[in-house]
């Protein structure tokens, strides 16, 4: 499994220090800005929505509200290894609520700016614009996600995919 990196010059200027909710996905540890996290819920049956790009797993019922679920593995081009997904993190992004499926939630940790580095470049074909940076704490590396970029680009891709989709 490869890590995805490309220089994230745009976000280098804003402070990335803060509290992050860390979670595991396919053996890698990621972090999400805690302010954007709405709640964590256990896995539930996801209703598939047809004719959507692969990273859209479907929708679920969250106390009467229907919200879409994004499959991060698919988004990052990782393989689906069929392991049991165990929970859903509901994030609130620009007023839109969505859920992301993860393997295991780890902890909330404060990361200082000094401990965050820009993601190194790995070359073309590997998308790292989703990363705010890479945090180093507790002797481990945590990939800090820019959730706005992860989910916003899914909308654009949806439109493109829907236009070119044919049965």
């Amino acid at each position, binding site marked *: 499994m490869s890590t995805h990196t490309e220089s994230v010059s745009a976000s280098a200027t804003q402070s990335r220090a803060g509290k992050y909710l860390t979670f595991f996905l396919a053996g890698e540890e990621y972090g999400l800005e805690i302010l954007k996290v709405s709640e964590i819920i256990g896995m539930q*049956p996801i*209703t*598939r*929505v*047809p*004719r*959507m790009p692969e990273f*859209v797993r*479907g*929708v*679920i*019922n969250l106390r*009467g*509200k*229907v*919200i*879409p679920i*994004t499959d991060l593995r698919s988004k990052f081009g990782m393989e689906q290894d069929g392991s049991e997904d165990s929970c859903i993190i509901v994030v609130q992004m620009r007023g*839109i*609520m*969505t859920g992301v499926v993860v393997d295991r939630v780890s902890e909330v940790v404060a990361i200082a700016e000094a401990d965050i580095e820009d993601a190194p470049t790995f070359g073309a074909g590997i998308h790292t614009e989703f990363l705010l940076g890479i945090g180093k704490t507790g002797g481990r590396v945590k990939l800090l996600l820019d959730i706005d970029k992860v*989910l916003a680009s*899914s*909308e654009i891709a*949806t*439109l493109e995919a*829907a236009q070119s989709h*044919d*049965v």
Partner: protein
Amino acid sequence: MQTSDDSSVSSLNLDDAATLLMQLEETDTADLTMLREALTDLAFENRVPHSAQPFVARAARVLGTIVNGTAPDVPAAFADVSSAIEDAMRASEGSVSRADRVVERAAETTAAAVTASVPVFELDQLDELDEPAAPIVPKRSLQHDVGVDQLPDDADRDLLPDFITESNECVVNAEVALLQLEAFPDDEEAINTVFRAFHTVKGTSAFLGLPRIAAFAHEAESLLSRVRDKEIAYTKGCADLSLRSADMLKALLVSAETALNGNGKLPLPDGYHELLDALAGYDPARDADGVMLPVTPAAPAATGAAWSAGADSDDIFPVPTGSSAAAASAAAVPAVGNGNKPRVESNADATIRVRTDRLDRMIDMVGELVIAQSIIAGDELLGTGKQHDLLRKVTHAGKIVRELQDLSMSMRMVPLRATFQKLTRVVRDTASKASKTVQFVTEGDDVEIDRNMVDVLGDPLVHMVRNAVDHGVEGPDEREANSKPRLGVVRLHAYHASGNVVVELKDDGRGLHRDKIVKKAIEKGLIESDKGMTDSDVFNLIFAPGFSTAEQITDISGRGVGMDVVRRNLEKIRGRIDITSAPGKGTTFAIHLPLTLAVTDGMLVRVGEERFVIPLTHIHMSFRPEPAMLSTVVGRGEVVLLRGELLPIIRLHRLFDVTNAVQSPLDGLLMIVGDGDRRSALLVDDLLGQQQVVAKTLGDGLGKVPGVTGGAILGDGRVGLILDVSETVALAQSHEPTPVRRDRKHAA
């Protein structure tokens, strides 16, 4: 803001008001209400000087918020009211106040504009029934000052929105009454309604610093008062002027609203000065359109009776009995207004304004409550049959919840009356332009539909009504030549049928000619031939974009952009439209609408492991086919033959990539959906039963999902997708049908 003509409300003055206020508390609702009304009257009946009026009005308004509980800080509100009354008292004593400047400036502007000897703001004088000092001057010249007005800097931005809303209501009422007046020129009630409306608008606009509106309303009111005093007759010319005045007032109000929300500039609507001149200089002796409006005789009423008596399921219209002579005397005057005798509108229901977003959320929540309760009721623990007590309690709660739901849904319903009234005007104007005589009859205007649907329904109806008058109904001479009464009839009828609302538009005009439509359709390449098409199928072709068989494109209709937009708009509110017609007799459009958009009556179906909800209104029937009914077309398309109709089969599992679904139609069910040329058979595995669901959007992150209108929470808490039938059919039709696999057992 109602003006009361009688002074039954106590002649309270400001001192009394102040004293009374000190004795009242928040809970003395009745007294507070009375005080508020008294203050309102003080302000609008011009019993306090102009300078004091804004303060009194403000006091009344804040009192209103205390009464209906919307005041955020009650003690502060009370203080506000009493200080407003104090200001008013001080202002009446002549000290310079903000209001003074407003009114003075308004008076100056208008004084410059009007050189008539009757200054606009001597409102007290004009209250009297006698025409004031100036005699009837045939032509008064008004000096027009050019330029765009400004909202005064200290315009009361709190009062203005209310004023605009309520003035709009006044104008709408006036319009309805004016139309009534055209049919029954002696109707005193109608004249009074119009007069009161203009009078109210004049008064309040004056001290809110909107001199243009005040001046205009004044002129319109003057004209109407001359009619009321029987000084002049209500001729067609008069009617036209009055209706145009109503339009102008609407335009002025729109301009005020724009100014309020924007930069304060009040653009003057086009034609303002011309209309003002026309109103001021109205001289019955020189009225070119001085055709007397006949008092509509009993004939239409009798005709109305004839229609309702003869349940016309088969005939398009029974010919009205013996009334043609009387109606024909109406020459070029369209006789509009209900065929029924004028009804006294009683607005006696107490109402309250509620923000619609709050209402919608509440209804949403109630819908969820229904589902949550049914999930509890469906829990297997209760199904064991051992929990009688608990089951009883849960069922009881269920009854209460369902009643709550009925109540909440009813709050969203509004009667169709307002929409129908708007159409009365449309018929009149269209008939006038097209030189036709048309009577517009409405029935069932107290049928209610969801308020969210009312707006969307309006435009399609306007378009269809225009079509009916412009193209459907023939000119009087043509009608007479065809032994029809010269007076054409357009009938709008709303009623309930099998859980839906049906709105029927019938005209007794030329009807649709199948051959002409077919010819046009072939010309435009829509079809190759009309083989196998029923009349209904052919008529549905007129909904295709760009289709129009009108020989002449008038500026009213005929451009062919209409009917497809009509259908699309109706689909937005999940409506369906059917057409029946007989050449020479007339056409009927029947619009079927669900009662509400909040809740969808759906059929739950299973395809593979997935469940979909299909709105009941779009389902015609479902059945399991026999092998003999199935066939393929050139090895690719699949069709089923049902009662002589060939329907394409749509494999939902293929369209939506569902695995483990039934492959053969013989093992599943075919569901006939769609209308006209889009009728198709959907292949599903199983029917799971009917369910009422609350439609939810699928989360904004997904954007528009093709073929799906939204999601619904099903009985077990999971989400089921609600299918958009027409989109689904369109999706299927636009894709290359994949070749039929050769191993199918039933291949013909």
